[in-house]
């Protein structure tokens, strides 16, 4: 069985959701780039300090942003952290955070390339 892996950034889906408004997509990417580091920092702090409720809240916010940007893979990783926070599952959180950070970096790079194409 071939299960499709979610892409880092589904630009086709994103454009279709914003009525093909490339200017808006560019604006949304800019907003993301400006707010993502502070959210990520708060999430990292919450993981480091073993504050599951904080992990849940920050991950939930990031998940919402990422879903709006059609960044399904990063959104799924944020959801995993959200669920771990919700369940108070500290074990494995650090690893999940590292993978999420890596995905975030990939996403930012992909956004740059999309902007470049526009």
């Amino acid at each position, binding site marked *: 069985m071939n299960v499709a892996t979610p892409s880092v950034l589904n630009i086709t889906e994103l454009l279709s*959701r*914003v*009525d093909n*408004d490339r200017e*808006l997509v560019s*604006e*949304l990417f800019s*907003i*993301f780039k400006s*707010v993502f580091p502070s959210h990520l920092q708060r999430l990292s702090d919450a993981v480091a300090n073993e504050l599951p409720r904080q992990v849940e*809240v920050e991950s*939930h*916010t990031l*998940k*919402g*942003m990422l*879903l*709006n*940007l*059609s960044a399904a893979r990063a959104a799924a990783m944020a959801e995993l952290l959200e669920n771990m926070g919700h369940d108070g599952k500290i074990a494995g959180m650090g690893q999940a955070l590292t993978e999420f950070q890596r995905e975030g970096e990939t996403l930012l790079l992909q956004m740059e390339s999309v902007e470049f194409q526009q």
Partner: protein
Amino acid sequence: MKILIADDDAISRRLLEKTLLRAGYDVVAVQNGLAAAEQLCKEDGPRLALLDWEMPELDGPAVCREVRKKKDQGYVYMILLTSKGLKTDIVTGLGSGADDYLTKPFDSGELKARLRTGQRILHLEGRLVEARENMRFKATHDSLTSLFNRGVIVELLGREISRSRRERVPTAILLCDIDHFKSINDSHGHLTGDEVLQEAARRLLLSVRSYDYLGRYGGEEFLIILNNCDPASTPRRAEEIRKALSDNPVETSIGPLLVTMSMGVHQTENWGLRTVEELLHEVDSAMYAAKAAGRNRISFTNLNISPGARNVVPTEAEQSLR
């Protein structure tokens, strides 16, 4: 139409704002639940709202509960935005007073369709409120003259007398009766009689202050309550009101008619223990005294001087002949 977006996520907020501006909405965007509740509880606040579930200060369901506590304002149609997809979450959201929910990431077509549903509900509510107001108006106003009907003007009189007693401020009661109205109806028909009543009501309304009360008391009788009316100026005010009708003929479909009225006036701040019915009886007697004295004049009764005593004031024309 004005719409509120409440979302702490800047991306979601901008996405919604742009989508809704493009759809022709007048958008108000806030970043937390407290600001959303403030906006929605304003008298002229948005009636349509998109509320994120998770927000600082107050979350989406808490905003819904706050808004629903305000029962005296128009309906606000609220849609919760959520990336929560569990049935229990949806039940919680709708239970808090939300009308609908939308799952993130939203589809712009679905969002607009759901907002149109909201607008239909609000439009329907507007029509119901309008119908209720029409019924309330019909129940409290006379259909021919649009003045307060008898029940309402008598109730207002009771309230004003209580206030006058309590605050020791003078109030004047004027009962006006159109002279020879039966002969107007008999000679020119009821439609002309109706025209006379409508014009009399219009002129009386123009001759009283915005805080005075005027109602149709009976067939051709009008009751006026002059609040806080200085006793020294009551005769002059009553005379101005009488002249408002008699000074110029009433234009009717059969031509101009000269119409006059007789008036009974009672004024005091010292009402004793008289009931509204007794006071109305007193002022009615004064009005009949004016009729008996030749019509087109005013008769005063003043309990402060002598209960039941009446002074019939001649018209200005009669005064000039003396």
